[in-house]
């Protein structure tokens, strides 16, 4: 198996770890970081595909993903701060007003 294929495999593993982290942890900040991990895994996959097909488009896409991740982190952490101001807690289970 050549390098790029191994990279795809690694990307899958990291994505899994990120998904589990987003589902299991209760600390909002750690959840957001897990989502970042998932995005990174996707970036890795894109770069690997770009290498396999010798096309630079994959890398362009990685740039786009990084931009979106940056924007998302900015806004997301802004929400976390606003939430913390109101509840004094970053436990995601304390922010469940939409429950039945």
């Amino acid at each position, binding site marked *: 198996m050549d390098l790029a294929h191994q990279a795809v495999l690694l990307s899958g593993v990291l994505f899994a770890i990120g998904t589990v982290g987003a*589902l299991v942890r209760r600390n909002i900040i750690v*959840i957001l970081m897990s989502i970042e991990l998932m995005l990174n895994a996707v970036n890795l996959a894109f770069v690997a595909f770009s290498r396999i097909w010798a096309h630079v488009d994959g890398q362009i896409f990685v740039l786009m993903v990084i931009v979106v991740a940056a924007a998302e982190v900015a806004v997301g952490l802004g929400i976390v701060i606003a939430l913390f101001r109101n509840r004094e807690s970053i436990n*995601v289970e304390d*922010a*469940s007003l*939409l*429950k*039945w």
Partner: protein
Amino acid sequence: MVGVTEETALLRWIPLLPLLTAAVHGVMLGVLRRSLPREGVIALSCGSVILSFVLSLVAFFRLLGLPEGGALVDDLYTWIGAGHFAAEMGLRVDALSAVMILVVTGVGSLIHVYSIGYMDEDHREDRGFQRFFCYLNLFTFSMLMLVLGENLVVLFLGWEGVGLCSYLLIGFWYADRFNAYCGAKAFIVNRVGDFGFLLGIFLLFRALLEAGTPTLSFAGMEAAFGAIAEQTVQLPAWIPGPSEWRLPTLIGLCLFIGACGKSAQIPLYVWLPDAMAGPTPVSALIHAATMVTAGVYMVCRMDFLYAAAPGASATVAWIGGATALFAATIAIAQTDIKKVLAYSTVSQLGYMFLAAGSGAYTAAMFHLGTHAFFKALLFLGSGSVILACHHEQDIRKMGGLKERIPRTERLFWIGVLAISGIPPLAGFFSKDQILAAAFASHLPGHLVLYGMGLFTAALTAFYMGRLHYLTFHGECRLDPAQRDHVHERGPTIRVALYVLAFFSATAGLFGFPEALGVPLGVEHPHSLWNFLAPVLSEERHHLDHATEYGMMAAAVGIAVGGLLLARALYREPSDLPARIAERAGALYRLIRDKYYVDEIYDAVIVRPLVFVSDRVLYRQVDAGLIDGLGVNGTARAVRLAAAHVLRHAHSGLAQGYLFFLVVGTLVILGYLVG
């Protein structure tokens, strides 16, 4: 027998006029909620029926102008059109229906006029008066449609209509629940008969359809009947009895079941005595002169069918004869004046079916006409008596009315003589012809039938005499307070009685038998026979005149004997009848309590049916299964699913939602890839 037909728009007005007035009353009372003044109601309702009678006369005379076997027709529109089959909304006046419309509108007009006086009290009650005439007009319309229909479908329309009006009119004073119950009983028993009737229509139609001539018009059926007359029908094995039937016999029996319901024969007669709960004019019109004769008319209309079905005809005759005898035995022990007349009606209808079953359709129609006259007379007379005694109907409490209301007594006596068959009144001629037909027929056991008819005649004379003497003669057993108020009724009541008495006396002339006419030098004296013969497929019986004279003498002798016996027992107050009743003991109680037929029906049919309907079908199936499981159960299931299961999907936690997202992605992946 199909002959010349002439189209005329006259016919439609005969049933249309009463329908229009009924509609006016209906709209006024039901929609506008206002009532006409008394004079308006009278003018409208009586006027329309009297006009119908005049038009019927015009039609009759027009018919006479046509060659024999002709008919007037009025085709309004195509009511049902399905492929090759068409049922027209069409009216037809041939000799048979001409007789019927004259009877219906003629007697009907008289009874409308009578009702003005009889229902007078109800006009002070809220809208009762107008409502009565509305229903009466509606009934007249339905009955006319029944007899004027040119096909079985229109006939059935009228058939159902008169059933409905009967229900409405029997339960007219519905505030008393018993009256409503009697109306419902009439309707339900009729419905049972109608089921058989419909089966007959379906069988007939299917056979005609398969033979390539799908039609239900009488003219068409008669023409096409020859092709199917020899067919047989196979019944499924689970139906008891023989599995193979001749088609005409089966149809004839099914149609006759309907006639049993409508015309109160065994076993569906039970509604008629209870129908006496309605006002007396209703009893006179519907349950004596017109509606109950619909069955007889139907059999005569379908004469081509019954002529080809000897089995069915024999059944008709036997049931008719048995009913006549059976009802007469009950009548001799009844104590309500109207009940006696009710059972008498059942008995006389039995005579008509006896004649029809023997193939003597003309005799049946003749008796239908004469019976209409004298039974209406008797009922209206009894109504007069009831009013005079302030709504007393128990003859044990009457008596001695002869001095107080002599004119009513005279007219009533004419009715009694007519029904007993005393010449020269009408009943003698019609009854005699029925007995002769039974005697001369080829039916199995026709001599027994003749004997039954003869004995019934004796009973008839007896119980009518008993009724008359107990009501009018002897001591007056009324309360003193009532006694002083007994007086003759007003002119509207009396005119009807006079006219009916006149016809009861003279209608015999229409059916003057040959045996009597020939010696008098008249070749064909039986005008009714001459009139109807081209329409009815009937063979003339050939009895020699000597036999006929013998039978006439026997009938008259028996009738006179019955009347004399009644006179001996009941004219003067005595305890002889009571002692006889005591000696007879159980037998007397049996006939007084009408052989417990109502009780048997109640126990065997009504109660189980009500039980199944209420306990099983209603509580278990409807409320339990369909409501509980289906409607409420579905709601409960949804509630459980949503409240206890789906609820947890909305935890409010983002992680829960993310979980579902992942699961969803897995499902889609699985579907797309795996």
